[in-house]
């Protein structure tokens, strides 16, 4: 079992938290600060929120003798990233009233709202609950939002597979009523038995836990970056089961060799028999609960448990707990990893439109009234909203007869123009949030990548590579929220204006990239890319992706 000799502080906070209640009620009453008690900042994550502050405003506020501008980021739990039009409309209004106004689609298929003042949290969560949305376990040392291949036109069985996202999310949900009590003013529990939690007990998991479900051939969700990856195996038009992979995770820390990104390793196959499937999932989590490292949070993810004990051990322990062994993994192929922009039709004849949303940030600016457009589309009630793990959304499940109406709105707001105008690399790019809200950011990401891409585009033009679907991703620190290590070109922030450059990842997300050069500033980055693209143009084998080319040429540090 994991050594509990020197538990990390967070472990103690969890255990004495009275099922994640802590002193949150008192914190909400504090009249002298906009923050919450230190211990509560760890607990509030389990309720789907992070306490942050506007880092741009720190100095100025300090001079004014004002504390940091504390606010909260709420991340919703949206298994598989599905919204009804009503839910979108509600979110639009909540964002307008209580937050920065920007609706942010995340790399895990859900949305985040930033800048919520402490006294606006309850109204925010109440309006969400009115449309059956919550943020339970969207963060914290529990299972996070369950992701799934986003586009229904990928497979006739999409709906069937997609349904598992919500069911797994439910299976792994904490039992405590704290969320309802604290934020929705639900009656206090008289009988605590009602919230006994055999899965999480009073200690929850050593660290966050992520589950993703992929549907070959498109790996749009980067399934292997999850702690637990399920790959739908479809034979003769039937879902026969899932390949099971464990130990994915990208977080690393500069200068800490013990930390590293890792893709999930396939350990077997489980048939599409719910009891077996859920038992397998459940026990994979309990093993991590019992064996995961609880003294060093940097080494607490499942990936380190797997590497510490080995996959064979994990399989045996799993069989012990489930009472059955996993089958041999089935063959499958991922051929791509992208969103299908523009109009698509699925097997049932329903229509789907994917607009280009840069870094998942939905707002109205001088160029594009995207937020208003989406509101009006939602108000027609004719399109569902599906989020993708590339920070996009799909206007979904539109009937043939309604397509024209949606098309008309898309034109009215120039969404189609905007989407068609965006270059291939821009559409394939991801940047994490980083500054000003992310406390861990070492450098800019979503506020900077769009400019950088503009400059990269001119280099591509110069080398006549514009049509290439090169995948570029940037993060403000090594935690990997934008999955930069799984990109063909990854930029990982090291300090303001400086990034490590990673190369040689593949196009399908089955191979991690490697570090090429460190601490580059913009000039250096552009110089490197100019050279690399020139070489790529000159020496590529026909059909060879940039990532494969970089690998073949060994453009990485040994």
């Amino acid at each position, binding site marked *: 079992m994991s050594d509990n000799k020197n538990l990390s502080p967070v472990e103690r906070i969890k255990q004495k938290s009275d099922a994640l209640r802590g002193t949150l009620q008192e914190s909400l009453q504090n*009249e*002298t*600060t*906009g923050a919450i008690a230190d211990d509560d900042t760890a607990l509030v994550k389990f309720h789907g929120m992070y306490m942050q502050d506007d880092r741009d405003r720190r100095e*100025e*506020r*300090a*001079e*004014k*003798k*004002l*504390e940091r*501008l504390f606010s909260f980021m709420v991340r919703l739990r949206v298994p598989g990233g599905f919204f009804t039009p009503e839910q979108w409309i509600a979110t639009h209004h909540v964002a307008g009233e209580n937050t920065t106004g920007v609706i942010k689609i995340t790399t895990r298929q859900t949305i985040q709202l930033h800048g919520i*003042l402490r*006294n606006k949290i309850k109204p925010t969560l109440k309006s969400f609950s009115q449309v059956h949305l919550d943020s339970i376990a969207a963060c914290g040392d529990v299972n996070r939002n369950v992701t799934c291949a986003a586009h229904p036109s990928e497979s006739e069985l999409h709906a069937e597979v997609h349904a598992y996202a919500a069911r797994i999310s439910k299976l792994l949900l904490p039992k405590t009523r704290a969320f309802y009590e604290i934020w929705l003013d639900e009656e206090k529990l008289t009988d605590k038995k009602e919230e006994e939690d055999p899965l999480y007990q009073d200690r929850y998991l050593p660290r966050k836990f992520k589950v993703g479900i992929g549907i070959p051939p498109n790996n749009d969700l980067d399934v292997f970056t999850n702690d637990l990856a399920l790959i739908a195996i479809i034979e003769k038009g039937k879902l026969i089961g899932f390949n099971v992979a464990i130990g994915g995770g990208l977080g690393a820390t500069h200068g800490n060799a013990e930390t590293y990104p890792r893709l999930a390793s396939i350990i077997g196959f489980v048939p599409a028999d719910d009891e077996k499937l859920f038992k397998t999932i459940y026990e994979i989590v309990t093993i991590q609960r019992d064996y995961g490292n609880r003294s060093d949070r940097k080494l607490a993810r499942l990936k380190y448990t797997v590497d510490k004990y080995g996959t064979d051990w994990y399989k045996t322990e799993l069989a012990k707990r489930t009472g059955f062994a996993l089958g041999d993994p089935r063959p499958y192929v991922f051929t791509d990893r992208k969103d299908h922009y523009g109009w698509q039709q699925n097997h049932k004849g329903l229509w789907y439109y994917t607009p280009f949303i840069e870094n998942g940030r939905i707002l109205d600016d001088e160029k594009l009234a995207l937020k208003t457009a989406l509101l009006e589309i939602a108000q027609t009630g004719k399109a569902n909203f599906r989020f993708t793990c590339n920070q996009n959304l799909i206007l979904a499940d539109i009937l043939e007869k309604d397509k024209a109406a949606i098309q008309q709105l898309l034109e009215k707001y120039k969404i189609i123009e905007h989407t068609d105008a965006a270059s291939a690399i821009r559409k394939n790019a991801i940047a994490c949030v980083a500054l000003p809200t992310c406390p861990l950011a070492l450098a800019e990401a979503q506020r900077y990548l769009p400019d950088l891409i503009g400059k990269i585009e001119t280099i591509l033009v110069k080398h006549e590579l514009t049509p290439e679907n090169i995948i570029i991703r940037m993060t403000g620190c090594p935690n990997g929220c934008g999955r930069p290590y799984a990109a063909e070109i990854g930029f990982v922030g090291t300090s303001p204006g400086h990034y490590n450059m990673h190369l040689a990842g593949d196009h399908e997300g089955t191979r991690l990239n490697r570090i090429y050069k460190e601490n580059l500033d913009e000039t250096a980055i552009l110089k490197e890319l100019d050279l690399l693209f020139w070489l790529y143009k000159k020496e590529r084998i026909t059909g060879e992706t940039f990532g494969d080319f970089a690998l073949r040429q060994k453009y990485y540090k040994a």
Partner: protein
Amino acid sequence: MLNTPKLNLMQELIAGSSREELIWLSGYLAGVVAAQGHPAAAAGQVLAQIASAAAPVAESAATPSINKITIAYGTETGNSKKLASDFAAKAKKKGINAKLVGLETYRLNDLPKEEYFFTVISTQGDGEPPAAAKKFYDHIHQNGLKLEKLKYGVLALGDTSYPLFCKAGEDVDQQLQKAGGQRIASLEKCDTDYESQAVGWFDHILQQLGTSTGPSAAPNGASVIAKPTGKKIYTGTVVANINLNDRGSSKQTHHLEIVAEEVDYQPGDSLGLVPENPALMVETVLGLTGVDADRKITIRQEEHKIGHLLRKKLNIVYLPERVVKKYAAIVQQDIPETRIGLLDLLKIYPVRDAAQFHEVMAILEPTAPRLYSISSSPEAHGGEIHLTVAKDKFAVNGEIKHGLCSDQLSLLAPDQTFEFYIHKNSQFRLPAPEKDVIMIGPGTGVAPFRSFLAQRDSTGASGRNWLFFGDQHFTTDFLYQTELQNWLQTGVLTKLNTAFSRDQAEKVYVQHKMLRESAELFRWLEAGAYVYVCGAKEPMSVDVDVALLHIIQKEGKKPLAQAEAYLDELKESGRYVKDVY
């Protein structure tokens, strides 16, 4: 009769003295003569001619020795009280049974029974009596009041830099006479350096009451005659000027840090200064009237250039009705009696010529000083004075304007200098170190409490401190938030309650937070806590009054009358004081 040097001396003295001073002088000499056992009348007459005011002298000379007097004071910042108590002590020494009483608690139906009644009263606001003396002041203004028995004298405290010098004292003096009272000492009007003048006045009274103060009176008396030297003026240099409100706030509250040589002040005092008029406004006035800015004219015994007067001395920005009325008389037009700026007057009702404007100059009043509570502590911020200035904002038919002085202060840049004086407030003082303190100071009302807390922090006072602060929005308007948080952490602040009125649907103010804390608050009161209120006189300080009454009723289980008595008791014992504006 007198030899030349003496005569010169006397003429010089007479020339340099105001009518009041002369009247006093005549009485004083009469007293001295009487004390020396010469016929008082002689000396009296001589001076009577000079002063052309023999009346008081005649009376005074005749008064028999008595043994019971009442000394009542009306004070805002404690000066009048201090003097009144000194007088009482002195009288007692002379074997006179002197009753000392604050006008706020004076029983009005005792007035007709009074025989000797001396009032020391200051003037506040724009010629108003101190809040504490309002009841008394209104009472003596009702007609039909009969006070035949009353023999009285009034000592008025004031400040010549205000338009209506010692107005409240003048009014009291007049009303008591109207009511049939007999003035046995002429009204004495004192500027801010009132000490010797006041003492002289009282010694004189004691003499009149037939009890000599002996030769010691002479030096005392002499010093009185010297023309008031005015208050001590300092020059301050701005070292920091920060707008404490964050972006997006509708307010602008400037934290000013000023260095000045050995300024003598205590927590609770405020800083006073006279704002200049905007240069552009002055030029326009000169342009419209065609007067010569360099021409010298004499106003209030002082000769100045017109330009200088308009820029630095006289209120032209926003004239009071009374001045507008006088203006109307000069230009002979009927002008609605409302406050208005001189510039607008000149535009709508122009003066005939420069000559007529000289007449107008004569009716203009001095610009009243503005006061700002000092938010620093001599102990904690040695050598510095801090202010917390809210930029006053108001709309005049649609157009946004700013207050004259607060605007100027808010625009001061580091290294700029300005002149100021200290306005002492001996009423608004920290209690003994071990006493508990409850401070209610929303908005800029927090200023003196920052001073209190800093002082108690650096002197290690053991008493508990509780602050109620309020403003519009938590994120943008929490003045001195981080400093207050630190004091909470270090325990200097025991409790901090805040009310931000516009962060929720319903308005929440400090009095609401007090009511929410009523049980605890009453416990503090019972434990002897001192309560201080600073900030807006209305509605805040009134609402706080009501809230306190309510708390005392509820938690003390007292009927209203008893609760009021409880609150009065707090006031009288100096445990409930306000500095509101």
